[in-house]
């Protein structure tokens, strides 16, 4: 059986490699037939450009660090930007792929969801609650689990992403709850970026396929429009888990349970300051791991997450560089979980969570004395539905029917003060009041010193907090596995960071060190009664250093290398937190192969061992991903072929408490072929 599979794999591989070779040959032929203008890479290329095109050249700025566009060197945080170019070059499929390439970030997968950690911090049982995810400034963390969805459950097709801003450090001074370790601001492509009709098709390992159609246009009257729809299907893998290796559980084989389907829709209209955006996504995932004591190897156990929103904002620009933005939004989230349990008899246990909320926001930006930039804002959010249910289908038994509503009010202000030509002070804070919790003020102060041209030193202090979410507070499955804890307090963090950014002779260098101190940390524990419960578990402190070097050479070659060391300890007993490697090293390298017809993006990622819940270690590993890319191979056709985990490295990441397994094996070598055509 195993042998047969192996043989099939080789045949498949050969076929795909042959395909890659053909792509190379064709690209050469088409290069001769249709020689096209290369896109700019060095400043020399810019000089030969018409001025109209020069106006479309991208420069490095960040929007999410201060809620207005500023230079990365002026921003009060350590920042990474991933552009749509990099998404193509390295064959990224999900936000998880994007974030795994970012300095100091670490994303794991348990075949149900992706878990995102940064700064050494990734807690089991946590659905990315400590990272704020924004889509064009719209908050994406839902109001039940606080989830920042970064897998295929992310609402937007990655092909529609223009850039991802990763803003490290506490962001509660601008955004309130959840901006604990950082803010990820995803900026979508504008109508001119898509410009017409574009269709894309992908095929990958394990019967995975994806189709997308997008349309973008700017009309003569100034109306800009983007419309896009995506559909994804994957049969998934047949997996095996040694923990279930017994006759009653198919000897540990979980076959046909790894399926994943999603569809998503996105639209955006802009007309003179008015911006209307709507998105919806729904994703179904089989759970092949037997998590939550479900019947192993049965495809009826699955989770479905759906999310949607409408965001209307109006941007008005006044004289003296003053801006006013007002925003009104409505959000919807629904989780539908089916867990097949064997009490006995076999019973379908259902989990349903529905969140609905609306909110409004006003934001003002202005100047003091021509020099200093100030912003101020007000935000109101009304979580008018936070519903969690749990029941057995038949015989019917109800375990949970929890209906909540809550609201929050936040007010914030920030100033960027030019002290001298070399010293910038960025100081701000936000006061939030959440229903049932006392109010809290979170400040952030950054001193940015520019001793010489192209050098910036940032000294940053910030505080952030996170309100416990409805799931942590109120969820219980009838005290079978998990119980509620309505008495939870918010968790808080204080962060100190020193950042050095330097540009020398085409190199961009970044060196940073951080220390943070978390108080009243919310952690999932197994109580004395054997039930899972969330508790405030005291203090923890983390520290780390990060280094990154980036270079763009003429000739289109670019590369980036980063190294991050981090460790987190519980302050009470000085025990290391697990689940996150102490060392992360990442290398990305992109080079043209045949003129501007074929290029390759190679990615190498190293993660050291991670401690799992058994206090043993999942071994460190090195992964290699490779993407071959041919843009405009036929006037309007782009092709790419990606190989993930090229070396077929067997590796695992720690699992959380709902699993019998202490670790979950990750994907071996997989492939993806992608074609995009523009009409």
């Amino acid at each position, binding site marked *: 059986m195993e042998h047969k599979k192996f043989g099939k794999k080789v045949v498949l591989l050969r076929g795909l490699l042959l395909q890659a070779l053909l792509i190379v040959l064709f690209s050469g032929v088409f290069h001769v037939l249709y020689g096209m203008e290369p896109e700019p890479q060095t400043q020399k290329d810019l000089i030969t450009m018409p001025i109209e095109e020069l106006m479309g050249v991208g420069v490095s700025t960040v929007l999410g660090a201060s809620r207005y566009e500023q230079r990365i060197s002026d921003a009060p945080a350590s920042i990474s930007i991933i552009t749509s170019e990099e998404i193509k070059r390295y064959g990224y499929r999900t936000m998880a792929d994007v974030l795994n390439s970012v300095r100091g970030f670490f994303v794991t997968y348990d075949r149900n969801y992706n878990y995102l950690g940064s700064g050494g911090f990734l807690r089991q049982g946590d659905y990315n609650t400590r990272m704020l995810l924004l889509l064009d400034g719209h908050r994406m963390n839902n109001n039940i689990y606080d989830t920042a969805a970064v897998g295929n459950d992310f609402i937007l097709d990655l092909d529609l992403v223009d850039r991802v801003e990763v803003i490290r450090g506490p962001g509660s001074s601008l955004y309130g709850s959840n901006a604990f370790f950082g803010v990820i601001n995803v900026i979508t492509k504008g109508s001119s970026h898509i410009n017409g009709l574009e269709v894309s098709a992908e095929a990958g390992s394990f019967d995975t396929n994806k189709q997308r159609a997008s349309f973008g246009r700017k009309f003569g009257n100034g109306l800009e429009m983007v419309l896009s729809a995506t559909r994804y299907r994957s049969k998934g893998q047949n997996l095996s888990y040694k923990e279930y290796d017994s006759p009653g559980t198919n000897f540990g084989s979980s076959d046909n349970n790894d399926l994943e389907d999603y569809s998503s829709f996105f639209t955006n209209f802009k007309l003179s300051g008015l911006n209307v955006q709507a998105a919806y996504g729904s994703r179904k995932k089989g759970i092949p791991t037997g998590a939550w004591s479900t019947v192993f190897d049965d495809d009826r156990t699955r989770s479905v997450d759906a999310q949607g929103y409408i965001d209307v904002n109006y941007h008005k620009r006044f*004289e003296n560089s003053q801006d006013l933005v007002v925003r009104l939004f409505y959000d919807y989230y629904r989780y539908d979980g089916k867990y097949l349990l064997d009490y006995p008899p076999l019973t379908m246990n259902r989990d349903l969570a529905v969140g609905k909320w609306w909110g409004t926001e006003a934001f003002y930006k202005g100047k003091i004395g021509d020099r200093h930039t100030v912003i101020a804002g007000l935000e109101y959010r009304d979580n008018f539905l936070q519903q969690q249910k749990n029941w057995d289908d038949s015989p019917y038994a109800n375990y949970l029917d929890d209906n909540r509503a809550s609201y929050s009010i936040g007010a914030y202000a920030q100033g960027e003060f030019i002290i001298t030509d070399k010293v910038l002070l960025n100081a701000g804070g936000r006061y939030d009041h959440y229903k049932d919790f006392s109010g809290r003020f979170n400040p952030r102060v950054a001193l940015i010193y520019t001793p010489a041209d192209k050098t910036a030193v940032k000294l940053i202090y910030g505080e952030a907090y996170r309100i416990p979410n409805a799931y942590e507070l109120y969820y219980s499955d009838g005290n079978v596995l998990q119980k509620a804890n309505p008495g939870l307090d918010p968790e808080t963090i204080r962060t100190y960071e020193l950042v050095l950014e330097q540009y020398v002779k085409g190199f961009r260098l970044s060196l940073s060190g951080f220390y943070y101190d978390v108080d009243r940390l919310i952690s999932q524990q197994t109580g004395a009664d054997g039930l899972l419960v969330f508790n405030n578990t005291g203090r923890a402190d983390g520290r780390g250093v990060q280094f990154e070097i980036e270079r763009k050479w003429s000739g289109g070659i670019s590369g980036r290398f980063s190294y991050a060391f981090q460790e987190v300890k519980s302050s009470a007993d000085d025990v290391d937190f697990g689940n996150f490697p102490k060392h992360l090293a990442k290398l990305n390298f992109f080079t043209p192969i045949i003129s501007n017809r074929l290029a390759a993006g190679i990615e190498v990622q190293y993660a050291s061992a991670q401690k799992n819940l058994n206090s043993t270690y999942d071994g460190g590993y090195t992964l290699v991903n490779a993407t071959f890319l041919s843009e405009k191979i036929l006037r309007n056709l782009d092709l790419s072929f990606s190989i993930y985990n090229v070396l077929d490295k067997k590796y695992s990441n720690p699992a959380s408490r709902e699993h019998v397994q202490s670790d979950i094996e990750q994907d071996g070598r997989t492939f993806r072929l992608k074609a995009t055509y523009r009409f």
Partner: protein
Amino acid sequence: MKRFILITVLCGIMLSLQILPLCAQGREFDEYEVKAVFLANFFKFVEWPTGNRSYRLCIYGSDPFGEHVKILDGMKIRGKTLEIRRPVSARAVNDCNILFISSSERRRIRALLDATRGLNLLTVGDTEGYAQEGVMVNFYIEASKVKFEINLDSIKRSRIGISSQLLKLGRMVDHE
């Protein structure tokens, strides 16, 4: 192992085929790389009443361009050689064609503009509020792209001419 060799060999062949190291795609630039190229471009769209043998681009105040203007020095534009100057006082700007005023001059901008009035030079800046103060062309950044605003009143008051092609690309501001 076989597969690995196959991949390696294939990659090797591909890399050996690298003949024309042209770029495949766009990238993000430093904003001053782009602004420097804009400045060079402006010479193509502006007419000065008095002709010189060369074009002079002057950078006034603390220089944000660094090495990014090196490439412009000695460049030929419309048959003339471009020279980069860094005048140290307002009295030394007489022979400039384009005067880039750094944001370090924020506090002295009015005095500087008064001193250059009547000199027929194109004033350019990249500081919020400069255009309203009377700087003719002022860069700003929007959606990670370099754009510029134009103070038409200031241009009309001088004797330099700007092509409509350039005017069309900029955003007009009202003089206060």
